[in-house]
């Protein structure tokens, strides 16, 4: 099977300038697959702070998804957050203490693994956010640095020169001669098709006998898929061995705090610094706290049910949604709030089935009426009708 050494020779074909100071760094690459856990002493303080800083970034990624930012926007926002809380400079930035940056990245990741391995739901969200962060970094990595990172791992791909049968499935420049030309300089990687499901789904590769022939420009798909699969596996292993950690009274409370924070979507910018900078508008993240302190009983019950079931039925949504609107929750925040609350459904389902209604109640769809919040008596009507809404309980 293919080994790292072969791969290095293919890189030298391209005569890429090699970075010279690898040897001096503990963490030679900016990118990290997090294969090895941190095997050194860590203070409790570091443990918590590093994790919190990383969590800010992951929460921002999640909220970018919920707000449906484009990939470019997401990348910009994430990079800004990263510079603030978790800077990670290129290896060529010799004036910076790269090792300590990378150590923070490494440690933070592993602490969060502990916090987020406990339920299926948490694992899924953690993997999604971490994968996105990895993609952002992968794209912003310099070419030669990325290449040497890739050659440091064995991805089990078989590099091939082009073969004529691959041309039919080759995309590239629109004009035929240009496509031919770029095809001939393209490198292909042969992997089991099941390692690049995203490319197979879109018919972007050539398939034969269970092998996918991946063109160089889609190589990242293999890397991302590998990252995801490894992390999923690792989280399951961690989840199984976590009970052995239970006797440590210093760490468990921190972990509990971290995972709860992530669940409620608290630690994005608002949670820490933003409170006074905010105007009068309510943010999606504030609803939890407001509900506990200030909401009337019926609304609080609705809110608690929403948190408990990750869902509310139609009249419950209508009633609670209008209440939030009158309270001053802007439409973008409302969509974000509901998206996060319905954490068990896919983005697709949310957009198809719920977003319209939310926008409708803000007068942005349909007859564009500005609905008022329902009064108490109306709640009672609904109660008599037997709808499942807050005041029943």
């Amino acid at each position, binding site marked *: 099977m293919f080994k790292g050494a072969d791969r290095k020779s293919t890189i030298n074909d391209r005569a890429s300038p090699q970075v010279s100071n690898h040897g001096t760094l503990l963490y030679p690459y900016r990118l990290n697959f997090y294969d090895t856990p941190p095997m050194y002493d860590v203070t409790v303080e570091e443990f918590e702070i590093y994790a919190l800083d990383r969590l800010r970034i992951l929460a921002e990624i999640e909220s970018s998804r919920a707000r449906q930012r484009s990939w470019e926007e997401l990348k910009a926002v994430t990079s800004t957050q990263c510079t603030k809380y978790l800077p990670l400079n290129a290896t060529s930035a010799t004036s910076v203490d790269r090792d300590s940056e990378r150590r923070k990245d490494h440690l933070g990741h592993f602490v969060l693994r502990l916090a987020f391995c406990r339920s299926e739901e948490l694992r899924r969200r953690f993997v999604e956010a971490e994968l996105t962060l990895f993609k952002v970094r992968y794209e912003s990595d310099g070419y030669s640095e990325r290449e040497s990172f890739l050659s440091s791992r064995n991805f089990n791909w078989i590099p091939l020169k082009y073969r004529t049968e691959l041309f039919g499935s*080759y995309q590239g420049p629109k004009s035929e001669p240009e496509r031919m030309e770029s095809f001939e300089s393209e490198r292909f990687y042969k992997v089991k098709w*099941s390692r690049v*499901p995203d490319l*197979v789904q879109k*018919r972007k590769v050539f398939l034969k006998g*269970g092998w996918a022939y991946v063109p160089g420009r889609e190589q990242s798909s293999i890397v991302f898929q590998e990252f995801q699969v490894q992390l999923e596996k690792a989280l399951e292993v961690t989840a199984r061995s976590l009970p052995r950690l239970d006797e440590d009274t210093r760490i468990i409370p921190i972990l509990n705090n971290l995972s709860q924070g992530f669940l409620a979507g608290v630690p994005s910018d608002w949670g820490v610094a933003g409170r006074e900078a905010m105007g009068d508008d309510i943010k999606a993240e504030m609803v939890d706290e407001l509900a506990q302190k200030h909401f009337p009983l019926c609304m609080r019950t609705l809110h608690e049910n929403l948190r408990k079931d990750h869902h509310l039925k139609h009249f419950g949504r209508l009633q609670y949604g209008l209440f939030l609107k009158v309270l001053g929750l802007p439409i973008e925040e409302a969509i974000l709030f509901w998206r996060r609350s319905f954490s068990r459904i896919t983005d697709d389902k949310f957009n198809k089935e719920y977003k319209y209604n939310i926008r409708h109640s803000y007068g942005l769809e349909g007859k564009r009426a500005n609905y008022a919040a329902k009064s108490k008596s109306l709640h009672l009507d609904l109660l008599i009708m037997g709808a499942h809404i807050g005041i029943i309980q």
Partner: protein
Amino acid sequence: MSGMDDSSPASPEVMLTFYRRLYPFKSIFNWLNHEHTPTRLFTHREFAFTLQGDVYLRYNSFATADELKKLVCQLNPTRFEIGPIYTTRPKDKKTVRAGAFNAVQRELVFDIDMTDYDPIRTCCSGADICNRCWAFISAAVHVIDQGIREQFGYEHLLWVYSGRRGIHLWISDKEAMELTDDQRKAIVGWMTVIHGGKESSKKLSIRLNSRSLPPSLKSALDHLAAIFSDLILADQNCFGSEEGYETLLQQVPDSRIVGDLRKKWQKDPTRSSEDKWMDLKEEIKKMDKGTPQRVALTLALEDIIFNYTYPRLDAEVSKHRNHLLKAPFCVHPKTGRVCVPVDPERIDEFKPDRVPTVGQLLRELDTVGKAEGEVEEHHSDWEKTSLKPYVDMLDKHALRLMDEVRRSKREMVDTSW
């Protein structure tokens, strides 16, 4: 092959006799289990029963084929379904915590149902099926069977008639059994050309930014083009009616040609689909070679062929490991026909109305019994009926699977030295 008169739903008594004397439990066991001694592939497998009166029992599992037979005879279901292999025995589901009960393996399955062809077939609709519309299914089987074998490299494919208007495919290769839901979704994406719904004129997503078809679809197209002229033009006469040719015209991206053809066809309602297809081709030939318009129209012709003949998959069935699918050799409650395996090589000769019904099989048994003067019941009485060739087919398929498992085990022992 006599007695095709009986197509009435099967009564409970008939079903019970069928399960006791005819249903090939042993063959089903071998096929699901891949070995002679029960493994997790069987013991941790979910079976779901539909009882008389639409009672649905999920999460049953069995240690042996005999145990399965015993419960089937006791419950006498109208049909039963086969689900995935779970981390724990499905019958012990309640004893483990929620997170620890997961589907881990499952045959990769596909379902093609005639109802998805309603927008294009002209001979029947809904639940009906005739030998003429079976041609759609047989075109689909050709494409899927070849695609799965050549592109994905799977070998253990079992096609099963669903008893009324569709066909199922079960793929039992080890690798296919272990696919995750995401990977299953990817295969479905690769195989899907027509994205469901009623809008048959909707654009197909088969070309990427280059004009040429991906190789997998190109090889399918050669086969489909032949079927198109036989099935769509000659047999189904899909563009005969006004509604039919309007649907065709919607897919032609040139308003001048559309206008001309519409006038021509309105004037002469007797023009057949073949004539109309020729008319369209003639119009395109009139254009200068190499112009973008002509290229676009030529591509549109290919798209039309795909639209009318490419397999229409019920995608949801394939995407999730925990989807249940009716077991082979069950009896379709409405037609009484047995869900028998189908040889993809001879799919064109397959006639749904020749498939034995449960009533017919029991009559055959009676005849045999009288002739031999027997009173006692036997377990593999299917050998004496027209069910035999179908059970043989499943046995042969299971044998190939078991051979492969034995071979790979031997290799494992070899390398461990």
